[in-house]
């Protein structure tokens, strides 16, 4: 099985702190990490390799520091990695990112299966995976919660959708955006870390991908961010202490629920 995994480096979310006074996010000194949802993509590829054999290529587009994320995926059991990086990619929206990533995937080799995360915890669009799949002409599966079988050039899998799970099938090559429930990612082993350190991660730049400049970066992005705001998420609600006023608290909730029609008038009369 020839597999690729798309991973992104994102600001580490456990370090996100909210400024108590302004209610906004403190961004200074926030470390970068591998997008936590992409760990499940890496893990699923490694599990399939253990079952079916093959090779896994990790691909990430980002600044040179994203090499660290690629190395940690290699430490989990992937075999090789490519970094797609160039100043010209700066400001890419999801369309330009997907076009660039698809070109990078093509450059990296031919693949039967390509894995992506459900979404990145910074941009949170979930658009890059399916779009890369479309550019590559692969079968596209989002919200994949289980790979049932990969046999005879065909994949059968489950998708977690509203209200349940559907089982679907399509021919390879396929791009799978996986959800968290698909597996529990393993930790890197020491041997894996050593191997990662020895593995060279070649660079793919704009020139090597052969995409016209007009389609790259900010200029190649149809969407433009015109304003960024930091909303305050404080509400100043009414706080009751159950110890001091047990019934007052419950009564307040009751009134609120009744106001919303969640509890009928008749019930209150019966009380």
């Amino acid at each position: 099985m020839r597999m690729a995994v798309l991973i992104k480096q994102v600001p580490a979310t456990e370090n996100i702190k909210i400024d108590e006074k302004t209610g906004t996010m403190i961004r200074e000194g926030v470390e970068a990490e591998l997008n936590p949802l992409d760990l499940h993509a890496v893990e699923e590829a490694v599990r399939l390799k253990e079952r079916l054999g093959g090779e896994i290529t990790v691909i990430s587009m980002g600044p040179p520091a994203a090499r660290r994320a690629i190395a940690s995926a290699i430490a989990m059991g992937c075999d090789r990695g490519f970094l797609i990086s160039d100043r010209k990619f700066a400001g890419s929206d999801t369309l330009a990112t997907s076009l660039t990533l698809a070109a990078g995937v093509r450059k990296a080799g031919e693949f039967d299966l390509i894995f992506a995360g459900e979404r990145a915890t910074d941009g949170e669009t979930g658009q890059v995976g399916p779009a890369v799949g479309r550019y590559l002409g692969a079968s596209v599966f989002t919200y994949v919660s289980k790979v049932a079988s990969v046999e005879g050039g065909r994949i059968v899998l489950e998708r977690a959708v509203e209200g349940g799970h559907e089982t679907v099938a399509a021919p390879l090559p396929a791009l799978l955006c996986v959800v968290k429930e698909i597996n529990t990612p393993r930790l890197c082993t020491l041997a894996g870390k050593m191997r990662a350190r020895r593995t060279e991660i070649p660079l793919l730049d704009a020139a090597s991908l052969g995409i016209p400049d007009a389609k790259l970066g900010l200029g190649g992005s149809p969407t433009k961010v015109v304003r960024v705001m930091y909303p305050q998420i404080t509400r100043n609600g009414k706080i009751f202490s159950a110890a001091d006023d047990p019934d007052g608290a419950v009564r307040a909730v009751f009134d609120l629920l009744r106001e919303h029609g969640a509890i009928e008038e008749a019930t209150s009369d019966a009380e």
Partner: protein
Amino acid sequence: MPNSRGDVWTLAEVRDGAIHSVSWELLAWGRKLADKLGSRLASVVLGSGVADKTDSLIHHGADVVYVVDEPELATYRPDAYNAVLVSLVKEYKPEIFIASATTTGRTVMPVLYVDLETGLTADCTGLDIDPETKLLLQTRPAIGGNVMADIRTPNTRPQMCTVRPRSKRPLAPDANRRGEVIVKRGAAADLASIYQFLSFDREKAVGLPIQDAEIIVAGGKGMKNPKNFALLEELARRLGGSVGASRQAVDLSWAPYSAQVGLSGKSVTPKIYIACGISGAVQHLAGMSAADTVIAINTDPDAPIFRVADIGIIGNAMEIVPKLIDMCPGGCGRKGGEAR
């Protein structure tokens, strides 16, 4: 393209053979945009056996309904859906095309915009028309709701986005509204699919999927054990709501992953969110702080969940939740009322 501006389109969603209510929410957004542009509002329906079910779209605000009713479209097949939509868009050239940020919408649109070479903005919570440029202004949260961004698609058409479910109420239906229904055949080449739908396994959860729920009773590690967690199911059942959970509760297998609320779970926008034994970590708040009303029950007066609560109760959830359950003895509220 100033003079020949196209229509505003919404993608209707069909579930279990019927138009789903998220389609009406989209029409409420779309109506506002179309009125500001002075253009028509159209809804696109793809499915099988849906041609006679489009009235509700017109009653909820659509001027035009495009229906492609073919057996091949009975289930969501990415390639066939995409090809049919590409053909429709190329023929009618809409100015704006919006879909719901459901699992289907979030798959259809990112495939379609590649073929149309236009912009796509994910999971918007606000839409408007810029009065000067007449461009679509798309507002969306990012980084767990800590940032809100305004995004535009100035040069390519259609301007596309997905819209978070429950970010707007449907308009009150008007059974006297009239509109035009245009039934299109799908081209054989468009309908051909490499995807095979095999089966659907329905989840046996209390109430609706949390993304659709008006009331969510959510629990965290503070519920202590699965037996206590079941109290939340009881309360949810009686209120006609659904059960949500923090990541800790999901990791402890007290609730399925489909119930997880937050950064690595679902973003929910219910009318009422009742958080029981949830500390309110930023990653959790990311998924629920857009709820209309938040009720929090926690023993720790300093728990961050109280910062986003409209009603906070400092106390033991195992004592308070049963009192709330007792408030509606035989099961009450919308859903419960029917069951009585």
